């Protein structure tokens, strides 16, 4: 009983502190009175959430550990695969009833799903913090834009070239960068991201500098232009599904297992016969492959690329998607990127509080579920 009261007191303290902090943040926006009300409400909500969570955990703990040993995993995946077909079905029918605005958001979400899944390979699977992922996105987008505008290659002709080029650029960065670990690697990748953006911004002769490249052609299929949003949507959906399937397959193969092993324990991995350097390289290259694909889709959708779309904030956003969903979890990352694309649109009504709310959401997430929405399912029983 004593322990219980301690837990209650601690969670009360925690909720009050969190709300106090947020109330201070809100002070300049909403004034003293509104902040106070906000403070009280948030503390109450947080406190009840914490208590409820604790209660649920206590009552299910025994049951869960018993189930987990036998069949939890299997049943979970079974339920998932049924849901998967429903989702695909829904995705295919979506343009029939969606307005153009919704389709636009959906296409954007699709592109970000591909990007986030790509970054998830590097950060989530192999555990290498890459803060310059947007560079590969930019390389993909610009290489298609330039091949199309300057050389007149069509989407499908340019596609393999761009993908090869982006993958190679991933290799080229990775070879020197992978001599470093942890924070140092993050700094080098961050630098690389900035270098790419600055090159795009300043190489006027090739990239048009800050003006970017315009007049990029949308893809056509069987002689039919896919430029219309409702048609282009299907290309993005196809690419997104392809990414999911490919990443899932690779995750469950020896390659994916090698990545995860490196993330979990590099020395352990190398002592199990994994050439850690080589597999880290692969993860960079494979991740940038998908970034390239996303970049091409982005360029073809916007019909215009400029360095503005590839700032450091974009890298951070993609990283947020991966972390929000749960590092290494494919379903989580998809959900995370959809949420982070849709949320700003939903919050458009309250323009000025948009970023504040987003930041607050992320902070709450880090406090209450640092492993992400779907991350670390196995560790849950802790």
């Amino acid at each position, binding site marked *: 009983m004593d322990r219980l009261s301690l837990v209650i007191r601690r969670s009360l303290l925690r909720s009050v502190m969190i709300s106090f902090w947020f109330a201070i943040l809100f002070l300049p926006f909403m004034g003293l009175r509104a902040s106070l009300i906000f403070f009280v409400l948030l503390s109450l909500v947080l406190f009840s959430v914490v208590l409820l969570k604790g209660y649920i955990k206590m009552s299910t703990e025994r049951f869960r550990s018993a189930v*987990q*040993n*036998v069949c939890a*995993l*299997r049943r979970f995946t079974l339920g998932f695969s049924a849901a998967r077909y429903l989702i695909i079905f829904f995705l295919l029918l979506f343009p029939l009833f969606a307005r153009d605005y919704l389709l636009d958001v959906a296409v954007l979400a699709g592109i970000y799903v591909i990007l986030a899944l790509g970054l998830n390979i590097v950060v989530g699977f192999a555990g290498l913090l890459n803060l310059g992922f947007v560079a590969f996105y930019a390389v993909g987008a610009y290489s298609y834009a330039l091949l199309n505008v300057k050389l007149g290659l069509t989407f499908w002709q340019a596609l393999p070239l761009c993908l090869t080029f982006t993958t190679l650029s991933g290799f080229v960065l990775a070879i020197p960068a992978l001599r470093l670990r942890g924070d140092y690697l993050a700094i080098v990748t961050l630098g690389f991201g900035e270098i790419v953006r600055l090159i795009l911004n300043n190489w006027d002769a090739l990239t048009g500098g800050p003006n970017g490249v315009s007049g990029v052609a949308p893809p056509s299929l069987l002689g039919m232009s896919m430029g219309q949003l409702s048609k282009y949507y299907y290309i993005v959906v196809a690419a997104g599904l392809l990414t999911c399937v*490919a990443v899932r*397959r*690779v995750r*469950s*193969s*020896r*390659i994916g*297992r*090698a990545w*995860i*092993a490196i993330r*979990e*324990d590099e*020395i*352990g*991995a*190398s*002592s*199990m*016969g*994994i*050439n*850690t350097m080589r597999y880290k390289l692969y993860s960079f290259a*494979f991740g940038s492959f998908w970034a390239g694909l996303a970049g091409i889709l982005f360029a073809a959708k916007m019909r215009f690329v400029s360095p503005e779309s590839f700032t450091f904030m974009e890298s951070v956003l993609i990283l947020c998607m991966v972390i929000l969903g749960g590092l*290494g979890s494919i379903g989580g990352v998809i959900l995370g990127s959809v949420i982070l694309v849709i949320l700003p649109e939903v919050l458009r009504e309250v323009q000025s509080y948009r970023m504040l709310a987003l930041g607050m959401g992320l902070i709450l997430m880090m406090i209450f579920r640092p492993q992400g929405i779907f991350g*670390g399912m*196995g*560790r849950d*029983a*802790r």
Partner: protein
Amino acid sequence: MHFLEVRALTKHFGGIRALEEVSFRARKGAIVSIIGPNGAGKTTLFNCLTGLTRPTKGKISLSGSDITGCPPHSVVALGIARTFQNIRLFRDMSVLENVLVSQHLRMRSGLFKVLFGHQTFLAEEEDAKYRALEYLELVGLDRKAEVTSFNLPYGDQRRLEIARALATEPALLLLDEPTAGMNPQETNEIMEIIKRLQKLGKTVILIEHDMRVVMGVSEMIIVLDHGVKIAEGTPAMIRNDPLVIEAYLGRSGVA
């Protein structure tokens, strides 16, 4: 030609002499124990054998081929696997996956076979799972294959490490304190496992503090102290060696 031959192995960390001119040989199928007080250089010896640290001097050869200074993953390919004193499991992976990881070298499917779900890839996965379960059965963990290794009790984690090392199909297995922190019954189980390994034709070198295990399973014992090999021989010889009694068992001579 000896199965494993270590000659004048020396490792200095700056001014610290972790290993000094250590030499020994092991025949195929033997169980060799390495004992010595804390900081005697036992784990450094293992690290040198598995390529995790490069020895300052000396030579290691396995079945006649020189493996000194090979990177860890090549050493595994040549047939040496190890467990770690401070458990190094892949914590977020299931027990089964842990053992699948270490079959990495035996599996051959490249990226394209994986992406297209090629028949050989699927067959290989099935085969690997089957083998993994076999290894788990050997250490008594086959019923816990789906559990996340992080959630395993301590003793099971140690056994999983053995299964995982075994799945690399080594000829030589290095066990770093496999019974550390175990109760007598668990220790007995580990001894059983070690004997089973010998029956499978594996050569085992173990670092161990539990004298019951050391005297019970080993054919040869090597004693290190301050990086120097001070004795080598059968359990009976070591038990009566005055140098060992002084350096390791203490002057009173009580194990």
